[in-house]
């Protein structure tokens, strides 16, 4: 009878048997065991590697000129350096779903309003650093700050040459 589990972790066959009509159902392991611990350690390690990777990637990208990029349904609508937006510029993007309004200035890009129910993209707030982004899934619009094609150093060399 599987109602009451034994005290020990090494359960007997009797306890593991599940009352199915001759069908193999998972063993009745209801106690947190070593296997679970290993699984969790594995997941946590995987996540820490991922977080570390993203962090390092972000640091490398940080050194490059920030470009603002707007994608709508996977297509690039805008890709230009943030520095060029000396005056505040407003973009409104029409999609099948509704309208998304993006405000860009030399320092930041921000989604001001959007016709989506959850408003997650608006809540993302101001995007100032490379790697930041705001995604509106219902509208399929992505606004992100991406690294430019060249690094700052290269541009400085250009400046000297000029």
């Amino acid at each position, binding site marked *: *009878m*599987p*109602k009451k589990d034994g005290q020990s972790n090494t359960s007997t066959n009797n306890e593991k048997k*599940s*009352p*199915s*009509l001759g*069908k193999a*159902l*998972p*063993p*009745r*392991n*209801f*106690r*947190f*065991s*070593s*296997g*679970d611990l290993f*699984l*969790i350690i594995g*997941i*946590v390690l*995987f*996540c*820490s590697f*991922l*977080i570390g990777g*993203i962090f390092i990637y972000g640091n490398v990208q940080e050194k490059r000129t920030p470009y603002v990029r707007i*994608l709508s*349904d*996977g297509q690039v609508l805008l890709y230009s350096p943030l520095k060029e937006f000396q005056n505040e510029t407003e973009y409104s993007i029409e999609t099948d779903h509704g309208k998304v309004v993006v405000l860009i200035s030399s320092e930041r890009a921000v989604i001001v309003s959007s016709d989506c*129910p*959850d*408003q*997650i993209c608006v*809540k993302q707030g101001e995007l100032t650093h490379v*790697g930041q*982004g705001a*995604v509106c*899934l*219902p509208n*399929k619009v*992505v606004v*992100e700050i991406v690294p430019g094609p060249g690094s700052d150093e290269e541009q400085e060399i250009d400046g000297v040459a000029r």
Partner: protein
Amino acid sequence: MRRSWTAYEVTKLSVLLALALMLSILEAWLVPKGILPLPGLKLGLANIALLIALYSVGKKEALLLSLLRSLVVLLLGGNFVGFVFSVLGGIFAVCTMIFLSGREKISIYGVSIGGAASHSIGQILAAVMLSRTLYVMMYLPYLILLSCLAGAMIAFLTIPVVKALDHIGTKMIQ
């Protein structure tokens, strides 16, 4: 060869489908949108029904239940984007749970946590496919870690139900 389903199993599966839908509605009601720290993060109460199906009906039936749930949610007025998310997340989660549940050393907690983690991976994949940018990948580690907590809680809630169903099942066979 596939053995035909008994009336008991079909009934259990239908009740579980209804339960899954009810729990989705209950969750939307209990946890208002935007209160959780990450977009896309959910408690996953409906996974209780999935876990019960896996443990007391069968593996294939659990996969079927997950697909049926996504389909019914779509028919009940969900949108297509949500459908893609839920199908991909569901398939990932159930396949992982089926794999883990066959292991002797892993308890129902591990099964649920593994399912929750791979559900997040499936959802992020759907987000990458739909938004066509890798940017959403940034969420992945945090989403996985938080969903593990939810997974453990779901397992805790499921255990008494599976025990009770086992008890009923034993009685019915005798």
